[in-house]
Structures are given as structure tokens and as C-alpha cells.
């Protein structure tokens, strides 16, 4: 764990010293604030559910931007050989990098807690769906970041990493549309893999162990795949 911690600190410092991080956070907060206030003014109800629905799409676009530099920048700077030959395993490197970007994401999510604070100052919203919504959004975002990390490991180009990550996330996001009568059971199975489908329960205040398991599985799967991709690069 100490080695993971070292990698984590290094990556976190890199994020906090990179202007891009603050640009992404500012853009996210601007869009999130706009959605929150527009929905509040239009619906005049103390409910964050429409906000969560919309902000999910925004993070779908921003997650690849946050993660595209994780491996690609190492290649661009020529530090990847140094990192891979350091006395730390590839798994530990991947975990350290992932935790760093996850903390950045959780800080960003923490800043949006202003919105439920505003709702509580104006009325009596139901805290259950808000708590569940944030838990779901944290898990969903963590899954997005794992996909983004994998995309960054696959290619040396940050742009391609960003586009690839966005494409993979979009595919898993829109699997929900496959619950079409014509596709039958296959459609149902594919729809069950949808990231947006799993988020729907959290939004309405329901915690289902299936959804917790789905997001956790996504994170484990893509972190595992990232380790395999980096190992392959190390040997070639």
C-alpha cells in the first residue's frame, strides 16, 4: 500500500499543478450550476433528480478529458520507461493513478453539495434520494474514470485516448435503449449492463445491491484490463 500511496501522491500533485484540472472543474461546475438553477427555476420543486439526469451526460464528456493524460502524458514526456522500471508493480501504479483521479472527482462532487444545501435552505427536500443520488453518482463517475484510465493506457495519443474513452462510455450509456420489444431477452441482458439504467434506482432513492455490484464490477474489470494493457506495453 505504501507504494500505491507514493504513486497516488505523485499523480495527485500532478493533477493539482495542472491548469487543465481547474479548467475541467470550472466547466463542470458552470454547467452543473446552470442545470441546477435552470431546473429549480422551471420546476420550483426541491428535487435533485432532474439535475442528476442531466449532469450525468456532462460528466460522460468530461471524464475522458480528466483521464486522457494519465498514461498518454507519460509517453509524451518519455517517463513511461522510468515508471515501468521503478520498483513498483504495474498494478500498484494503476491503482495509484486511479485513486488520484478519483480523489479529484470526489472533490468536484463535494463542491456540488452546495446545491442540496440551497434546497434545504429553501424547503424540506427528501434527504433519501439526495444521499442515494450522490452515492450513485460517485460510483458511476468512478466507473467512468476506470474506463477513461483504460483508454489512456491503450494509446500514446491523448486525443485518441479521450475519443476512445468517450466512445466506450457512450456505448455503455446507451445500452439502455436496447430494451426494445423486438430484441427480447438479449435486449434485456444488454440493457442490464447500461450505466444509466443502474443509476435510475439511485436517483429515486433506492439502493439495490445489483447496481452496487455492477458499478464495482465495471471498475474492477477496466482496472484489470488497464493492468493487462500496460503489461503488454512494458514487454514490447
Amino acid at each position, binding site marked *: 500500500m505504501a507504494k500505491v500511496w507514493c504513486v497516488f501522491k505523485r499523480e495527485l500533485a500532478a493533477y493539482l499543478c495542472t*491548469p487543465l484540472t481547474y479548467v475541467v472543474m470550472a466547466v463542470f*461546475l458552470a454547467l452543473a450550476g446552470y442545470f441546477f438553477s435552470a431546473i429549480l427555476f422551471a420546476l420550483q420543486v426541491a428535487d435533485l433528480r432532474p439535475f442528476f439526469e442531466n449532469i450525468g451526460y456532462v460528466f460522460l464528456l468530461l471524464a475522458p478529458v480528466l483521464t486522457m493524460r494519465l498514461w498518454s502524458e507519460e509517453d509524451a514526456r518519455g517517463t513511461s520507461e522510468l515508471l515501468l522500471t521503478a520498483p513498483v508493480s504495474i498494478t500498484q501504479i494503476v491503482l495509484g493513478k486511479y485513486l488520484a483521479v478519483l480523489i479529484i472527482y470526489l472533490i468536484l462532487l463535494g463542491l456540488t453539495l452546495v446545491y442540496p444545501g440551497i*434546497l434545504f435552505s429553501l424547503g424540506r427536500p427528501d*434527504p433519501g*434520494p439526495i444521499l442515494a443520488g450522490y452515492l450513485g453518482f460517485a460510483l458511476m463517475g468512478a466507473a467512468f474514470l476506470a474506463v477513461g484510465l483504460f483508454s489512456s493506457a491503450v494509446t500514446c495519443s491523448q486525443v485518441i485516448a479521450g475519443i476512445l474513452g468517450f466512445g466506450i462510455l457512450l456505448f455503455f450509456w446507451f445500452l439502455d435503449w436496447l430494451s426494445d420489444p423486438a430484441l427480447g431477452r438479449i435486449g434485456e441482458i444488454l440493457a442490464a449492463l447500461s450505466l444509466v439504467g443502474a443509476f*435510475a434506482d439511485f436517483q429515486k432513492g433506492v439502493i439495490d445491491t*445489483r447496481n452496487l455490484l455492477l458499478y464495482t*464490477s465495471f471498475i474492477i*474489470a477496466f482496472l484489470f484490463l488497464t493492468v493487462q494493457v500496460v503489461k503488454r506495453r512494458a514487454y514490447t
Partner: protein
Amino acid sequence: MTSGSRTRIWRRPAFQRGSSTLVLTVAVISLLILVNVLGARYHRRADWTRGRTNTLADQTISILQKLDRDVQIMAFFQKGSYQASQMRDLLMEYKSTSAHIRVVFIDPEKNPSLAKLHDLIELGTIVMVMGNKSRRIGPYNLYDMGSVPSQRPFRGEQALTRSLVELLGLGQAAVYFLQGHGEPDIWGDYSILNSFLEGEGFTTKALNLPTEEEVPLDAGVVVIGGLKRDISAGERQELESYLDRAGKLIVLAGPTAKAQQLGELDSLLNRYGVALADDLVVEPERSYFFDVLSPMPKVRDHDITRKLVDNNLAVVLPQARSLMVAWNTPSGLVLDSLLDTSEKAWGEKDWEVHSRVQKGPEDTPGPLTLAVAVSREAAAASLDDKNAGAGKQSPQRLAVIFGNSSFVDNKTISFQGNVNLLVNAVEWLLGNEAIISIRAREPQLTPVRLNTGQAIRIFYGTVVIMPLVLASIGVVVWLRRRLL
């Protein structure tokens, strides 16, 4: 080239590394899939909402656990509508509880062929199909009464569960409509009422007494509605036998021509201390758009009418007759008036003779009773009874009699509280033990009132100031890097 200098492909390090990576990847992904499949089968759900609005009632869970065949539920809703999201939330709970529930949302505008296939008339309709049986739930069955549509309690769970009960053949009691005397047809003038009752989970059937030996045993309620000719003596006897074995009766009796007296029906109603007055109600004070022959009576508080009273809903009874009620009947019957006219109303006796109604000395003065509920008090527990603490038993509910039959025909049924009045009467007669009754879900969204100052502060604070602070930090970081 000799075999010694050519390494077999499967012995090459790159191949071995690649194949072991592939095997490991397949194993890990397969394990994750297996864990998720098991997790889907043995999952737990926790409802964190105030009021547990996402938790199904025990009755629903019990019914869902009895399902042994797939039930396809097609929900015809406009995509993105609030009603669609409410119904989706509910149907996802049903789906989570039973693997036999299949849910499909269809936007009729995007799938007109599917909508046509199911004879879809209105948005917000649910069609449930199990094998070769199907049930339809209309949009009016999904919401309780209320003047503000967005604040109406949502009754979707009750509607869905009742329909499941019918599909499974577990049966709520059937509602039989007497036929053969010129009554409106349940597939004709009473078709909307029929659809509404079916949407509430009741099975409706036509009853032609001359062809039946007796009133069917599954009859929960018999409705005698809109007779144009009297029943026969034999039919009256069959109905009396049915009522003697705790049958329930609803009578919808509007005015009939003097040549068509309803003497046998009157005899039947005499057991309840009620008689049909031979008149036509004229209501100059409380009438529908000044039509004095369409009274809008006062709704009295009763279990049947409570929701109408609470929601300030009126009823209109075009062409009504008054009821003569023996209020102090000694037979232990309890008679409760449900609908009364004003004092200025009267019962016009010779309405067939004159073209204009005018109060005469022979006419019955108001206030007049237009609907009455009949029950019988059960005997109270005696003081030396061992179970003295049990208290009084529930009254036995017997009949609801209306002096009008047109308030639930297709032309008038959609007026305010008309359909709910009759459906409530059916539910009251059958009692909670015989039917599924699930609490409606109240809207959980708390409204927020913003003044201009608050709105401006919220907007600039969240959209401008917070992002600007972060952007400023980014600029500082960038400047520091440039200066280093």
C-alpha cells in the same frame, strides 16, 4: 531451414504471455459476470425515501411471488413525461420483485403501429398480457381524485396489482350487470364505466337471469341499471335468493314512463325500506348550467362519498327520480342518504303531460333524496362475552340505490365525481376484505418559492462565482508554472 532453428509458435515467449493474458482476462471477466448474475438473483433493495414511496405493499409482493408465468406489461406513455417516469419507477419495482415481469415502454407517437395493434385510445394506458389473457388499465385508474393534476395521489400500484390478481384468476368478486330489460349495454352506453371497473381490477359480466338458474356464485355485486321495463316475478325471486345469501345490490333507477311501472323492482327494494317515487326531480337551485332537470345534489359525508367531499367534487344526475325512504325502519337496517337536493327542488308528478315543469300541489316538495346506502348493524358484543374487548362488528353492507341511471353512461360519466361515486359504491359494498386496497402514493416533491433576489443569488453563485473561483486557481497555477 532445420526444425531446431525454428521455434514452435506456442513456445515463443510472446505467444505464451499473450495467451496467458487472454486466459486470465477471460477468467476474470467470466467471474465478474457470474458474480453479477448471482447478485441479480439474490439481491437486496433499500428504500431511502421518506415515506418509503418506492417500496411495494405486502399484498403486491405476495401476488408477484405467486406468478409462475411471464406477464408482459406494455405502458403507452409519452417519452419523457412525468407520468411516464412515475410509472417507470413503479414498474421497475415490480420487475425487481419478480423475474416474470417484462416491461416495455411504448411512445405511441413513435410507434403508432403498436398503439393501433392494441386499440390504444389514450396516452397513459397500460396493457398487461399473460398467455392468452389480457387486462387494460386506463389513465383514470392511475390517479386518485384531486383538483390539481400534479398533486393527485398516484394509484398505479393498486391498479396494477388488482389486474394481476384478475390475470392470475385469484379473483376479486365479479360485478354483474343485469340485462334484458332495455338497460344500457356494458359494451355500449356503459362501456366507459365497464372499462373503468376493469381498470380497477374488477371483472364485469352481463347477467341475463332468464337463461341462468340463479345469480352466479361469483357475483360480488349485481347492478340493475337503467331498466326500461320491469323485471319479472321470477327474476325478482332469483335476486331475492341472491340477496338472502349476502349478495350486494346497486340499483340505478331513473324515471320511467307511467306505462312502464317498475313494480317488481319496487318490491325488491321494499326489503330495504326504499321505494322509487314516480316523479322527475326538478332542481332550480343546484342544477347543471341552469338545466333544472339535471340536478347537482348535495353530497353527504359517507364512506362512499368521503373522497368526493374531501376533494370538493360534484356529481350531476340528468333526469333523476327521488327515493322514498323509510328512515326509521325497525328491521335493524341503517339507511344513509348520499345525495340530497335543495329545499327548492320538487318531484314533478305529471312530467309526461306538461311540456314545461311547474310546481303543483301534487308534487313532492324538497329536499329530496336521490341516493341512499343501506347497511345492517351487526349485534354489539355482549358485556359478559369472553371477548368483550373485541368491540362492535362491522356493519353488513347491503345495497346502494340511486334514483338515476344516466350519470354513468358514456355522455355523463366523465363529469367530476360521477364515475368515482359508482366505483366507490362497488368497493364499499365489497368491503376491504374482498378487494385489494393499496394506499395511494402522495406526491413527495416539496414546492419551493423563490423571490427574485434569491433566484439571482442562486444563479450567479452557482453558474458564475464558483466556476470563476476554480478558474482563478487554475490561472494562478499556470502563472506559477510559467514563472518557475
